[in-house]
């Protein structure tokens, strides 16, 4: 089960800066555990953001992204009441979507 993202918004003159903190182990697939065996790959592979349902940002992630990743991007043409939604999907097929309203 995945934990909620922490999303913060800062809006100024129609541009909203979105700061997202995701809760994920992000195992690179390169690391060995205490038992000497390789810890299997487990990371977020796709991230997408929508503004009122329209995709505004997509990202493909790999093993170089840290544990509990932080993502920041800006969306143009936002107004109060707009809905920004973020979704990630990992290689195990797990996914998580969180929404915030522009204020």
């Amino acid at each position, binding site marked *: 089960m995945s*934990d*909620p993202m*922490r999303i913060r918004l800062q809006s100024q003159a129609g541009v909203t800066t979105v*700061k997202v*903190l995701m*809760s994920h182990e992000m195992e690179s697939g390169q690391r060995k555990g205490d038992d000497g065996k390789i810890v299997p790959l487990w990371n977020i592979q796709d991230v997408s953001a929508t503004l009122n349902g329209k995709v505004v940002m997509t990202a493909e992630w790999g093993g170089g992204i*840290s*544990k*509990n990743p*932080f993502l*920041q991007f800006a969306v143009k043409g936002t107004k109060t009441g707009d809905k920004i939604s973020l979704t990630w999907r990992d290689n195990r097929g797990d996914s998580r979507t969180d929404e915030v309203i522009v204020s």
Partner: protein
Amino acid sequence: MPQTNTRSIRPAYKEAWLCFILVAVVGIAKAQSGSFEGPKSTGNVQKSEQPSEQSTEKAIAQYRQMLQEANPADLYVTKGEALWNSARGPNRQSLASCDLGLGPGIVKGAWAQMPRYFEDTQRVQDLESRILFCMQEIQGFNSIDLAAQDFNTPERLNISLLAVYVASESEGVPFNVPMSLPQEKEMYKIGKKLFFLRAGTHDFSCSTCHSQTGRRIRLQDLPNLTTHEGAGGAYGSWPAYRISTGSIWTMQQRLSDCFRQQRFPKPIFASPATIALSVYMGFNANGSIASAPGLKR
């Protein structure tokens, strides 16, 4: 004849050397600007060209501030809060009735007044030892078993989560560690003694690293825990998220690792010695603002 020949050749040699020197100088200049502009300068070349000590510290401060905006500790605070309110343990009870010193169930601001003396246990307790006590009394966990476990076992990680949640509820509150009772005064005295006690194979004490202002080890500032500011900044920012381990560390774990670095025997979790050191640091921090959860390398 040979003389005229050498004369005509010599100036050409000179020019060639000049050209080579010019090329070499331009080459070095380019290499330098490249290494400064590059996003991942290794920093191990041209040491004399590096900015001064002061601007290094400024750059570290800027780096820390960028990280602070995205402190993953926030994710763990949410988990800790859910854990605090969920019915767990053999007794299937939540910790909602746990008394952290301000009365049963009061979490807000409680950590800023810890460690303190508790009537019910007749002991001075810090945050983690009090949580451990509540887990035993209310939820029915075996506190001796839990204290003997490693920091990374599931239930001990839960203690760290609970601690980071409780501490976060004191964010922005000034420290007011009580020091009116004889038991509290005695613990402060013991803590101070332990802080300055030199021992172990390396003849180390806490004060070896933590009694001078403006020192650092590699890129980490070493807080002067004998001062009000130093203790406030350091003690007040644990529990913290450690980027190097990707997990929450409480003050107990910080102390345990400090003991390891001093080549001291491993302290028992929530033991009187560790609590005494927290009393010493906590009381020294009195008046400064609690900033936990922090973000550490």
